[in-house]
């Protein structure tokens, strides 16, 4: 008898991949899904659930469904990917030096002159002149 293609395994793994790669391009943009990445955890849960269903039927009804080997491999891979995601979020993202030397409210802000994206020199005094206040946002850079 021809055994059935065990689609939940593959669908589940595909969702796990989406859960991993969607955080930076999509969910980081919205503070609600950025600060606690619940949307990604939900996707992991969904993908993991599908994988579990697929692997379970591969082992319980091997004469009907394929996927004992592929399902096991993809399940282990998924766990590793989830582990990598959780470590990145809970540990790697927090590896920045303490900011004890950062300026405090009440201190004078050092003036500066820097180039903008068009190459024009922009002075902090010029920015302050036309405005009530300036918010300086320091970025790590494009990566």
């Amino acid at each position, binding site marked *: 008898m021809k055994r059935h293609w065990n689609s939940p395994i593959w669908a589940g793994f595909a969702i796990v991949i989406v859960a991993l790669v969607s955080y930076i391009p999509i969910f980081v943009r919205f503070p609600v899904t950025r600060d606690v990445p619940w949307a990604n955890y939900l996707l992991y849960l969904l993908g993991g659930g599908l994988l579990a269903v697929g692997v379970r039927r591969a082992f319980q009804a091997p004469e009907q469904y394929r996927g004992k080997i592929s399902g096991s491999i993809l399940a282990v891979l998924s766990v590793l990917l989830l582990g990598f995601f959780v470590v990145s979020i809970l540990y790697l993202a927090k590896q920045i030096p303490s900011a004890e030397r950062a300026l*405090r409210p009440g201190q004078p802000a050092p003036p500066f002159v820097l180039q*903008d994206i068009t190459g024009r020199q922009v002075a902090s005094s010029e920015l302050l002149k036309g405005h009530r206040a300036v918010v300086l946002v320091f970025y790590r850079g494009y990566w």
Partner: protein
Amino acid sequence: MSEFHDRGVEVVAISVDSPAESQKLCQSRGYSFPFLSDPNAQVIRGYGVLHPKGGEDDKDIARPAEFLIDTAGTVRWVNLTDDIRVRARPEAVLGAISRLGG
């Protein structure tokens, strides 16, 4: 962004990236505020937000931070995160701006 402009407040970004790299970032994210380049991290150091060797190839970069500066050039509000993912929410910055008075 328009909420900041409505209140007479300019938002300015600073990173160690070159103007060309920052231009790519601004285009891909649709940033319309001034994005300044501090390649030697001199200004970043001056504000005390250097992350030594934090970038690729052990390059010195800025740690994420936000400073609100009034027209007298005084720091009025600071947000320092301990997680590179988590930045100040616009509401928090707008709240600090309302407390500026004047």
